[in-house]
């Protein structure tokens, strides 16, 4: 029998494992990320969030198990047009201006040059468009990197900690942008180690030590654990897990 949620999912994994330097970084993950929603991947630093995102984008070596993205095997050539990816460290050229960076990546993607101005506007950097990236602040540089991922109308955005270190106003604006994108049908997967960003997501994957410990909506996570906030829910789940393994 075909499971419909599997077919419709933007991301589908089964028993995904990654080993690095003899250590298991991802320990058998099976989950689905629904299309057209903002899904948060939350967990402490070092729990394997970035490795999972790299596996989804198809740049992580030595993955075993299943990772399907938009109905195709992760990393397949046809997906390179359809997935936008922002690494944790801003991967743009510091010795070029914002506009030069975006023009270059737009040419690589075959995106319209009009997309360049749109992307710059979406991340609120119009006033800095001709400034060198090396002169920008860390937060501005991260937004340039995000703007690159918005080029070429990707169907899936994989964003590794895009809001770290940003001021609260900007953070709110970016989350609003993610939701606008999701409303237009884009699937957005956002990682964060800050638990208070959980309520901005429609769905949550809580991760700890290479394992998904919860996969639910923020409301259901709170009600099922009886916690006031997601940090509380996270702690309850970890405690339950410890008791179970005793």
């Amino acid at each position, binding site marked *: 029998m075909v499971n419909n949620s599997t077919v419709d999912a933007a991301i589908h994994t089964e028993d995904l494992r990654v080993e690095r330097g003899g250590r298991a970084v991802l320990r058998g993950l099976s989950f689905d990320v629904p299309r057209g929603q903002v899904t948060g991947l939350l967990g402490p630093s070092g729990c394997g969030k970035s490795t999972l995102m790299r596996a989804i984008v198809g740049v*992580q070596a030595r993955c075993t198990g299943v990772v399907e993205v938009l109905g195709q095997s992760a990393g397949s050539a046809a997906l*390179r*047009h359809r997935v936008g990816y922002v*690494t944790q460290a801003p991967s743009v050229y510091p010795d*070029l201006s914002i506009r*030069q960076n975006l023009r*270059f990546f737009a040419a*690589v993607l075959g995106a319209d040059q009009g997309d360049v101005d749109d992307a710059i506007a979406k991340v609120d950097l119009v006033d800095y468009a001709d400034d060198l990236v090396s002169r920008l602040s860390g937060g501005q540089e991260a937004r340039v990197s995000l703007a690159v991922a918005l080029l070429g109308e990707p169907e899936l955005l994989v964003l590794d900690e895009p809001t770290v270190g940003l001021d609260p106003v900007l953070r709110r604006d970016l989350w609003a942008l993610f939701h606008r994108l999701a409303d237009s049908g884009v699937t957005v997967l956002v990682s964060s180690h800050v638990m208070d960003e959980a309520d901005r997501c429609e769905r949550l994957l809580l991760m700890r030590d290479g394992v998904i410990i919860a996969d639910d909506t923020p409301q259901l996570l709170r009600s099922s654990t009886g916690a006031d906030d997601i940090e509380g829910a996270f702690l309850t789940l970890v405690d339950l897990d410890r008791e179970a393994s005793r």
Partner: protein
Amino acid sequence: MNPRITFAVTGRVLAQLRRDHRTVAMLLFVPCLLLTLLWWIFDGNDLVFNRFGPPMLAMFPFIVMFLVTSVTTLRERSSGTLERLLAMPMGKGDLLVGYALAFGLVALLQAGIAVGLTVGLLGLEVEGSLWILTLVAVLDAVLGTALGLFVSAFASTEFQAVQFMPAIVLPQVLLCGLFVARSAMPGVLEAISDVLPLSYAVDAMREVQVRTDVTGDLVVDLLVVLAFGVGALALGAVTLRRRTA
């Protein structure tokens, strides 16, 4: 490969260079400075300058492009932009050829200035065509670019990348026939020099210097240099992995 993407890479590398005036100045004028120094230390002894000039014209573009490319590519690998590009519809060939074209253009400029200086002002005697002399210099630069791209895969810091210069370039300088004719070297060394690309680059320069026509030897030398360049680019493509640990 896709020409739109290849040329986008070339344009981007040149745009980065244009912003970096110091590097451009070093690329274009340091070889001239060194050639002038060479001419000066032989103090008007044209015979010696004519012996050492052509190998130098082959060596400078090779060395300079090797250094610039290995550091630039390493930066691309370590900054995350390479990972991002390879997650996009970027062919490995697009990236490598895009780089080679950009630095090839710079090499054309560099070689043009260096040839103009040595032949026009310093009195280097060349029987063959100056165009061919420049072509040889450009091919040497492309060879340096290709080798630089290749070795950048084996360095994890810019410091290490620079160390490849003495490790990979200097032995070729010693064995290319500059100090001792290759035929006069111990057999083992001559055999080694036969498989090093710079030897053929220097031979080609000398051939242009003494022969007015394009000889079969010259064509063979140029093809060997070109083959090494293409080979190094192909090996460089192998070192670009879409999936990394």
